[in-house]
């Protein structure tokens, strides 16, 4: 298969398959998790300032006392790459075109050099986080195959996308096709791995906050 035909496949059939599996997976898992509901807590609810679902959602966005000093790369690197990913995915003009095709509406983007800058920061942050996971004995001990796998699934689209725009290593056609392919892999595995936190993180925090808030504890 020539490079052009490979690109056409990933832009056509591949994309269709990946988005289908993604949507199917997300809906199955969302319904599966949230349909379980909560066990009714028959105790008298206590109201303590700062102990509620909403409070927990925001409180957990900040590292707990002493944690930032303990593990700066985890928190700083984590924030940098999450924000970087958001900028790249949602504010880069070619990506906005993609969403426009899917959703029917679009929004203004950033100049391409700003996104390029964000991409470089994201790549560096992710490499630092990987290095940290390898070099810190406790982190390494706790890491399973899924941790390394999901890191690669998230890293490769950013790397290949950046390399395509910079015209590095492989001819553009192939680099672009690889980028789209790695995005498709990310989409396919997202609902079935810890990456699903994209959809459940705030729900989880709110749940923990509410349940414990009922008992009068701010978590």
């Amino acid at each position: 298969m020539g490079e052009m035909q490979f690109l056409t496949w990933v832009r056509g059939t591949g994309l269709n398959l990946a988005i289908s599996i993604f949507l199917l997976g997300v809906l199955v898992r969302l319904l599966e998790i949230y349909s379980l509901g909560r066990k009714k807590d028959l105790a008298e609810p206590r109201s303590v300032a700062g102990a509620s679902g909403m409070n927990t959602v925001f409180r957990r966005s900040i590292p707990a006392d002493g944690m930032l000093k303990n593990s700066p790369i985890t928190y700083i690197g984590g924030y940098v790459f999450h924000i970087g990913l958001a900028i790249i995915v949602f504010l880069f003009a070619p990506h906005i075109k993609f969403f426009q095709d899917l959703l029917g509406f679009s929004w203004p983007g950033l100049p391409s050099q700003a996104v390029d800058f964000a991409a470089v920061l994201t790549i560096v942050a992710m490499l630092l986080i990987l290095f940290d996971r390898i070099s810190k004995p406790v982190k390494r001990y706790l890491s399973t195959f899924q941790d390394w796998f999901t890191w690669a699934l998230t890293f490769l689209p950013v790397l290949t996308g950046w390399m395509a725009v910079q015209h590095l290593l492989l001819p553009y056609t192939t680099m672009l096709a690889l980028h789209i392919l790695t995005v498709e892999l990310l989409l396919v595995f997202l609902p079935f791995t810890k990456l699903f936190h994209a959809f459940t993180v705030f729900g989880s925090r709110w749940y923990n906050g509410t349940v414990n808030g009922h008992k009068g504890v701010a978590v």
Partner: protein
Amino acid sequence: MGLENFAEATDTTRDGLTGNATAVLHEVAELLVALAERGETGVIDLGGMPLSSADKAWLAERLGQGEVEMTLNLDGASEVRETAFHGVWWLVHHNEKGVLTGEFIETGTVPALVSAHPDDIRQAADKLGFLIDEL
């Protein structure tokens, strides 16, 4: 520096010069020496290398203007200019629509295109002979 100025602020060329014009000037010098010492002619294709318009202007300024300017009418005008350095000629070719099709620097007594070819001269001599016969 706001995001709007990002592009201009990151432009790194100075006055549009790429540095390649200096290399071309060196090549012209070498070819001119070869012409002077051994009578060898030479050609440099300016279209064949990455020269910005600032580079070409820089080169034209350094080589300067000589005493000879010629226009050749060959399916579109071709301009031949002697530079301030004897033996160094600057040629600009256009097609019938006036679009630039080629630009060269030649070293030689005259550019190859300008000299009349011996075969053409032979033919012309015959032709002129016939013309006079018919007078």
